């Protein structure tokens, strides 16, 4: 089933089209939401709610972005809502749009366990971008389109997230040390 056929099927309310869509995106979407939220139950809620919203709003889908991007945008927004409810401040007042070479930022030989620990405590604003970049393997341009942010902002968050992971930043990135 091509994407166009799937979209047409979704618009016609065909169950097969919905099944196909959920089989195609369900696991990866759930993984992404889990990595952002770090809560299995909330991630499952978000993914189910995402698919319900896809059903409810598919007639408004105009094909400007791919179906995949559109679905992920809904899921990311719902995940952010969940995070807001946990009182995370997702706004970043200062962004470093880096001219630094991000390729060379994470060079420290961190132990995998330490890296894991730092990832676990990383602020959602950075984790979200890292998950989309490394787990979803989206490009900067795709993440930018998905999050409605400038590519420079995405690069900055990615860069900053990596610096935090590398331990180069003493403050301002972890949940324990809010900005």
């Amino acid at each position, binding site marked *: 089933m091509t994407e166009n056929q799937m979209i047409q099927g979704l618009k016609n309310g065909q169950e097969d089209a919905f099944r196909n869509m959920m089989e195609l995106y369900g696991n990866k979407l759930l993984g992404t939401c889990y990595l952002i939220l770090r809560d299995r139950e909330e991630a499952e809620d978000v993914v189910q709610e995402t698919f319900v919203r896809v059903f409810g709003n598919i007639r408004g889908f105009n094909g400007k972005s791919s179906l995949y991007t559109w679905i992920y945008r809904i899921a990311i927004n719902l995940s952010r809502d969940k995070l807001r409810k946990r009182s995370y401040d997702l706004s970043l007042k200062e962004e470093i749009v880096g001219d630094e070479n*991000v390729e060379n930022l994470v060079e420290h030989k961190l132990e995998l366990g330490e890296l894991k620990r730092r990832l676990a405590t990383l602020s959602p604003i950075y984790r979200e971008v890292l998950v989309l970049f490394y787990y979803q393997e989206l490009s900067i341009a795709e993440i930018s389109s998905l999050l409605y942010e400038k590519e420079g902002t995405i690069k900055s968050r990615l860069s900053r997230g990596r610096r935090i992971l590398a331990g180069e930043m003493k403050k301002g990135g972890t949940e324990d040390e809010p900005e």
Partner: protein
Amino acid sequence: MNRNDSKNDDIRTIFDEEAKDMEFTSQMMESVLNKTTRSGKGKIRRILNYELQIPLIPAAVAVAALFAVTILPEGVLEKQYRLTSIDIAGSQVMVQEDKEVTRK
């Protein structure tokens, strides 16, 4: 942006490992379907969006037939002209007796 250095591989490995047990189960799928396509709203939407595919030629014939039955004046298709030929001073004149078109 290079994803392929060793530290990036580590990050990807951690993410893959953490998310490996995440499975969108058939139970979750059924739950979504019950809230969407199988709900009353979903059924109504399916009916409203149902696409009718009508073959063009039979449809055109049917419309033409309907037109002939309902729009055309009664008897117009069976109209037969009675022609009468009259000789007047060596010339033949054809006289046609026509029926009225409008219904009374």
